[in-house]
């Protein structure tokens, strides 16, 4: 077993995850996105202006037609995210394997993917829930993007600290309680950051709540599908890799 074998399996699992996530995003996400764009066009730019120097977002004179944005464009986004996050989860699973007590390769891999979903998506979601087109002011896109990625970095750092605390405590507590203290450490650090970070509420007055809710639910479902497929497929591939390695070792011993 080598880190390279984990990486290639992660990339493959991520490819599948990206394709499934596209399916969920297309079916659940495109209706609210189209509803939001229709609202934007009927509102005639009343909610926000397009001319503030930030690029993009004139859906009428778009270089890329909506029919491509909602299909191949969307697929590009979910597949690139799936493949590259998959590679990272693969290598992190290689690192985690055997370092958290007697947890099976499958369970370790699934736990790494679940942690990735929480740390990279759910936590930022709490402070900065995703918005459909036409929600958000072009004047604040810079500061909103900076805040989003800073919170993402804090979330990752909090997770690293939590893992180190949990692993350190395994010498004093049993695995279950060490895990609980590690999880609590993450919740306090990352939850504290969510409480302290600035909020941006730029949903226009009288914006239909159902469009906003459907969009956010679809975004959540898309990311959940991505991480779930990634975690479960990678867990299966890693299990086969570990079993094969163990069989080879056993054969070698037998010979």
């Amino acid at each position, binding site marked *: *077993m080598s*880190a390279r074998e984990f*990486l290639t399996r*992660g990339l493959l699992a991520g490819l599948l995850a990206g394709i499934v996530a596209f399916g969920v*995003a297309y079916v659940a*996400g*495109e209706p609210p*996105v189209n509803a939001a764009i229709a609202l934007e066009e009927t509102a005639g730019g009343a909610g926000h202006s397009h001319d503030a120097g*930030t*690029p*993009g*977002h004139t859906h009428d004179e778009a*270089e*890329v037609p909506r029919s*491509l*944005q*909602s299909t191949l*464009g*969307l697929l*590009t*986004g*979910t597949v*690139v*995210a799936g*493949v*590259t*996050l998959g*590679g*990272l989860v*693969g*290598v992190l699973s*290689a*690192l985690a*394997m*055997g370092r958290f007590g007697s947890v*099976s*390769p499958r369970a*370790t891999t699934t736990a790494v993917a679940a942690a990735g979903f929480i740390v990279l*998506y759910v936590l930022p*979601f709490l402070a*900065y*829930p995703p*918005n*459909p*087109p036409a929600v*958000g002011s*072009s004047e604040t*896109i810079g500061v909103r*993007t900076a805040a*989003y990625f800073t919170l993402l970095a804090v979330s990752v750092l909090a997770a690293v600290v939590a893992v180190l605390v949990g692993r350190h405590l395994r010498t004093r507590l049993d695995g279950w309680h060490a895990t609980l203290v590690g999880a609590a450490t993450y919740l306090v650090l990352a939850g504290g950051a969510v409480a302290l970070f600035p909020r941006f509420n730029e949903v226009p007055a009288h914006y239909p709540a159902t469009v906003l809710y459907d969009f956010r639910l679809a*975004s959540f479902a*898309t*990311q959940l599908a991505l991480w779930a497929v990634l975690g479960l497929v990678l867990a299966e591939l890693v299990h086969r890799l*570990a*079993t094969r390695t*163990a*069989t080879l070792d*056993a*054969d070698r011993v*037998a010979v």
Partner: protein
Amino acid sequence: MSDLSTTTTRAAVAIPTLSAKAVLPWLLFAGLLMLVAMYFISAEQGAISLLSGTGVHEWVHDGRHLLGFPCH
């Protein structure tokens, strides 16, 4: 493979551990690959523009929204 060795294998699916030293270069590689790729999906031609125009933004527009990034 005999029944005996199968049983031994089952029992011996021990959890293999790779040395951190061997994994770290791969972690760095996978991490950088993810960061560069996700930059283009999440932020290029939005808050920051390395390339001029709006083609990248428009191409990944729906993915950027639905994956949860601030788009505009």
